[in-house]
């Protein structure tokens, strides 16, 4: 039997973690070949499942000794290929690190291991009147470690912010294998702020201290049906312009509603060209006042039907269609791409019209589901993969939507991350100097480039190179080892 390059390190991992926590069997390795973005697949070289931060640090040190790239992964729900493994490297799975270490209500914080799911934190404190605010749609299964890596958002981040606004402290294993505490309040550079959202390229979080939020006194959810997206958009502008920051404002267009209806029979108003969901929360009197305003503004903007929910069941009924929208498009299209771009809220009408034009131009249907309050679009680009050329056209439309976002001063990703999927778009959004400056951070944390390489940045500058504008071809490009996008 031939000796594979990873056999030596794998034996050392087994010594460190025990044989049951190291996977080398090719069939079992394939379980980990992708994250939520399934069209990128790589079978990892070795998978390890450590129990403790010390074990993670030990694994990372062995990787350093053998010059092996490593990728950390939680539940693998990411949608940008951020946890895509390396065939020549090690996949560090945090699934066994799922203890809630402490809940400290007087200080409104909890410390958990990275494999704890987002929802498990809320479930642990719900009965005590608290919750963990960031709520990505995958919160039942996604892990807090993955949320930290991606700086995850969710429907309610319009009012409450993202993961980075709710993480008070981190214990990380640095790319060279040291355990370091990063604190939001300690003296020095805000390394915690730089680490959250760095997509695993600056190290691995092994403990996360999160802020717990007190459950609001009142939650009221309103569904408003409009003839078209433009009228719905007018309502959104009026609400925000009126000084109201709802907990969430979500919009779906006719095609997205059709899909949701086919999948979960959410019984949204018939004939709606756009459905707007507005959630208000806070002190009862405040919510009552805002509810009156929002209702009035929706009517003025042309809402032809309004539904209200102020108990959990009715609220769930309103959210049902929205929350199932991504999966639901499978009912009306054999294949689809979920895009994740952001535009300034005021640019929404123009961008949606442009998406409509693109859709007609390429003969590709696009269902729009979006966080209207913060301009985060999730166009679902639908195509039939049996039709020759359709996938390519869908990919083209999807890319053109990102171009639109950049043209309007927006972002190529609002919450899913760059990962491998969008690394090539980074030079469209940032200059070479911007990217080089980001590389200074990368090189400080990870001079050898072993931590989740190939993600976020298309052509990272080598850490030994002098900072500043690149001169001539990149050495990796020149050597034929990398491609410049």
């Amino acid at each position, binding site marked *: 039997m031939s000796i594979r390059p990873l056999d030596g390190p794998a034996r050392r991992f087994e010594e460190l973690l025990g044989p049951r926590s190291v996977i080398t069997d090719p069939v079992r390795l394939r379980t980990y070949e992708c994250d939520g973005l399934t069209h990128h697949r790589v079978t990892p070289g070795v998978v390890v499942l450590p129990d403790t931060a010390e074990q993670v640090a030990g694994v990372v040190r062995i990787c350093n000794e053998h010059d092996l790239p490593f990728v950390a992964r939680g539940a693998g729900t990411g949608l940008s290929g951020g946890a895509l493994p390396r065939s020549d490297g090690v996949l560090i799975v945090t699934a066994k690190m799922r203890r809630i270490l402490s809940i400290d209500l007087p200080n409104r914080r909890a410390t958990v291991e990275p494999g704890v799911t987002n929802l498990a934190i809320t479930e642990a404190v719900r009965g005590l009147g608290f919750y963990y605010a960031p709520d990505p749609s995958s919160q039942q299964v996604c892990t807090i470690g993955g949320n930290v890596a991606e700086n995850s958002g969710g429907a309610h981040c319009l009012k409450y912010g993202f993961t980075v606004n709710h993480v008070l402290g981190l214990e990380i294993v640095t790319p060279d294998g040291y355990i370091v505490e990063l604190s939001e309040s300690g003296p020095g550079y805000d390394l915690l*702020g730089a680490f959250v959202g760095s997509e695993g390229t600056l190290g691995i979080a092994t403990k996360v201290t999160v802020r717990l939020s007190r459950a609001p006194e009142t939650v009221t959810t309103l569904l408003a049906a409009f003839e078209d997206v433009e009228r719905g958009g007018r309502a959104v502008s009026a609400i925000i312009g009126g000084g109201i920051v709802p907990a969430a404002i979500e919009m779906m267009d006719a095609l997205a509603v059709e899909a949701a209806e086919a999948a979960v029979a959410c019984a949204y108003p018939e004939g709606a060209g756009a459905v707007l969901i507005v959630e208000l929360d806070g002190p009862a009197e405040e919510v009552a*006042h805002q509810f009156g305003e929002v209702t009035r503004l929706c009517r003025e903007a042309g809402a032809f039907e309004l539904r209200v929910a102020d108990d959990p069941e009715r609220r769930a009924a309103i959210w049902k269609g929205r929350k199932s929208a991504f999966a639901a498009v499978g009912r009306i299209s054999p294949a689809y791409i979920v895009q994740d771009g952001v535009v300034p809220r005021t640019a929404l009408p123009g961008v949606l019209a442009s998406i409509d034009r693109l859709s007609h131009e390429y003969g590709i249907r696009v269902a729009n589901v979006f966080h209207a309050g913060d301009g985060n679009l999730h166009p679902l680009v639908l195509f039939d993969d049996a039709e020759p050329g359709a996938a390519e056209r869908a990919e083209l439309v999807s890319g053109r939507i990102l171009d639109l976002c950049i043209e309007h001063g927006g972002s190529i990703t609002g919450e899913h991350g760059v990962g491998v999927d969008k690394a090539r778009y980074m030079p469209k959004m940032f200059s070479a100097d911007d990217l080089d400056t980001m590389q200074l951070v990368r090189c400080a944390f990870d001079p050898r480039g072993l931590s989740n390489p190939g993600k976020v940045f298309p052509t990272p500058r080598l850490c030994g190179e002098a900072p500043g504008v690149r001169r001539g071809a990149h050495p990796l490009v020149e050597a034929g080892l990398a491609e410049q996008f």
Partner: protein
Amino acid sequence: MGVTDATGTGGPPEAPEAMEALRATGAVIRDAAPGDAVAGVAPRWVASPRDTGEVAALMRVSAARDLAVVPAGDRTKLDWGNPPERCDLLLDTRGLTFGDGLVVEHSAGDLVARVSAGLALGTLNSMLAGSRQELALDGVPRAGTVGGTVGGTLATATAGPRRFRYGTARDLLIGVTVVLADGTVARSGGAVVKNVAGYDLGKLFTGSYGTLGVITEATFRLHPVPADRRWAGVDLPAPRTGGTPGGQAYRPGGLPPGSDGFGRLDSLVTALASAQAEPSAIEIDWPGPRHDLTVAVLVEGVSAGARAEALRELMSAYGTAWLRTEAPEWWAAAPGEDTLLELRVPPACTHHALRVIAAYGLPARVRGSAASAVLRMSFPAGMDREAFTGLVTGVRAGLHPFGGGLTVLAAPPGLADGVDRWGPSSAQPLMRRIKERFDPGRRMSPGRFVGGI
């Protein structure tokens, strides 16, 4: 004030040539005056660039001639941090503009503003007031100021009472333009609130005390100005312990809880922080030993009156509580000028922090955000250096069991000599590596920051 010439006597012979090179950037350059000193260290020149391009040109000249640069705005916090090891050029950001002389680009419909780093926070909020929007940062006013510039607020990561509801500068910053030590202009983030593309350099630069580069522009998320504001408060009796010069009087658990007003402080703060009336700020003001401690909250929004009344009722179980339509006069202001320390403890350990201080029996004034656990402490002028050193070491050690820390923000010349102003951090090796990458020549505010960075 003990101003020293960091360059030695007379300066090097190439000085006139360097000044010419700086002038060639287009920025206004002048010789520094004694009032331009940075924590007692005199620069040679003061540059007033008009835009990011001129800052970049200045930084390139500085790189070529190994000039040390310290950025400055309204100078309200220029004496914070360690004195710089050297300072050749003070870079005054107050004249910075972008796009045809603009200092603010306000997109009201997006609740976003792009702002020149040199603009004063107070001026910015006056400009936004017409749209009934604001940048929800309070700044930390000192005598005769309105809280400094946007750039200074970011560089020192200062935040006032409303941090409890809105977060701090790093939470409200969505995009930043910086000029690095070698003149590279870099942007991160953007003009949209929701954005996870690339590393967040804005967070790294926020609180970096000018050691990584010069912040020239910032883009912030804004908030609607609340329809109404109310303040409610209560006075709690002070601890009866007198304290000792060495501060040995207090050990956690050494005093029975409830023996004075402080014992109930944390339960009050916990109750306020969790109250459904949703205060935007929970502040304390303690003028010093033998004085009562005031706890005050701010409530904002349409139903502010009714919600503040609910909180007043809650507080009335602790003492005589009050309700006002105006902020208390001490609200959001630094507790003092010359000697200013910042204490950080978990919110439910605020009373421990106060007892640790009270144990020294010194005339300390403490003020700050109880529910966010950032307190600032000041002393009257004339404090003895030995007592100060003992206090810093002792309070730091006293806060350690609670996971707290202490930073000396400002101190009169000589008082903090030999004192570690920042305190320990396990991440210091990583911070040094960041500094080495961004500023390998150690020319950006050298020595001012944690561990002498």
